[in-house]
């Protein structure tokens, strides 16, 4: 028998847990314990997902482009905030509470206002996504910048390095790890943020599709789109992990001699 690595075993466990939930769900709905119109069975949802696929793809493109634009702008804003807050202590003291405050605003409450101010097009959606995604980025980067070893910083200073060089040689690479942790969170926030803002007004996108099928009481379609959104979020998170591996080659087999 070949030995399995711990990560393979843990994957085995998590996969079987998901399968078990789906199985129980299938048994409960399939046997008629729960009425099919209240909760469709996983198999039913799967079938719907296949028949609805072309329409879902059209809506996905809209949602994903909103999420992408919002996320990119959110990263840029988050990066900018982190850099200036790290560089100037007074800005850190002034802005940090404000940045935290933006995270206490309930997204669902502000989304309709954004629609009133900016209309039904892409703009209000992108703004909402920026507000939700920049925060994990800013906090991640700031933590990283501040975790730089002061001895390493003074060594570079002794070598004659300026602020800019210290930033690029130490602070930025030091912040890569927390940055990607933040980005993983932000990427899934971006999709959820896009869907929520589509609920409250728009012409297309997965959120608009959701409100339509809800009004039609098509619960199978509702679940199909929920499955799809989860799948997209997972895919994005893996994409971020892949990007992280590319950007941080020093994290590969660190113990190998």
């Amino acid at each position, binding site marked *: 028998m070949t030995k399995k690595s711990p990560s393979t075993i843990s994957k085995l466990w998590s996969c079987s847990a998901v399968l078990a939930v789906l199985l129980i769900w299938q048994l409960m709905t399939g046997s008629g314990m729960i009425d099919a119109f209240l909760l469709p069975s996983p198999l039913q949802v799967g079938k719907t997902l296949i028949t609805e696929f072309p329409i879902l793809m059209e809506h996905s493109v809209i949602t994903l482009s909103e999420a992408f634009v919002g996320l990119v702008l959110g990263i840029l804003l988050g990066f900018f905030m982190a850099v200036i807050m790290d560089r100037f202590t007074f800005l850190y003291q002034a802005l940090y509470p404000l940045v935290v405050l933006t995270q206490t605003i309930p997204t669902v409450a502000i989304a309709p206002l954004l629609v009133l101010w900016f209309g039904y097009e892409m703009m209000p959606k992108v703004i909402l996504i920026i507000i939700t995604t920049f925060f994990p980025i800013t906090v991640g980067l700031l933590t990283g910048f501040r975790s730089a070893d002061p001895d390493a910083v003074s060594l*570079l200073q002794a070598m004659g390095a300026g602020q800019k060089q210290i930033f690029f040689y130490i602070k930025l690479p030091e912040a890569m790890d927390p940055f990607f942790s933040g980005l993983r969170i932000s990427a899934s926030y971006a999709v959820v943020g896009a869907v929520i803002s589509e609920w409250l007004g728009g012409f297309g996108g997965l959120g608009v599709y959701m409100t339509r099928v809800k009004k039609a009481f098509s619960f199978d379609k509702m679940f199909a789109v929920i499955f799809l959104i989860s799948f997209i979020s997972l895919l994005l998170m893996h994409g971020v992990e892949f990007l992280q591996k590319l950007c941080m080659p020093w994290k590969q087999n660190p113990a190998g001699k």
Partner: protein
Amino acid sequence: MSVLRVDRITKSFDQETVIEDISLELNKGELVSLLGVSGGGKTTLFHVIAGLSRPDQGRILLNNVDITGRPGQVSYMLQKDLLLPYRTIEDNVALPLLIQGMKKKDARKRVSGYFSQFGLEGTQKKYPAQLSGGMKQRAALLRTYLFSEQVALLDEPFSALDMLTKSAIHDWYLQVMEQIQLSTLFVTHDIDEAILLSDRVCLLTGKPGHITREIRIEEPRPRGKDFPLSRRFLEYKQQILSHLESQCSETISVS
């Protein structure tokens, strides 16, 4: 001719004088040790020499040019190797050249010539985490050397290594120093290390710390493995110990 001159340096923190009236001269190719108890102000003195902090009084001269409070002139190396984990050894070593404005390609080329001399062949593309403690210190020393071929300040560079690695790196260090003739100011609290490596040993004692004695180690170079076992070595050690004991009534934490 003196490369580095430390001229009557006094420095205090929060009203407390840490080092007082320290004068030192370092000649070309010479290795001078500063030996003293931990917390005796050795690191403070190094920060002043490296230009990271300004002294209250006194000057630092490099080749007769005043460099007091000006970083970027002399390099230093600490007990921690401070190799950046996200750069390959090659790029870590090239860092001082990059900071001085050399192009990455040129810096790598320049650096590669030194790898075999420093016993680092084959580590160019590795990351620090993949190297042993002794190898990391060698890489850090090469980086220090590339920063300034004139003066290196080494602050307990080998004290975190285990005894066998330390002894091996001493042999290696003496060999490399024969070749590159780097003028070195070496801080340590290890008496054996000071005697083995130095041309002169300065004893830093008291509070505030000042230099109370200087001992010349006359042993010719290259120094062999049997030197630490010789009678002459023990006599130097005796001399140093009795001086330190006469100076410090408190417990001495020398190893």
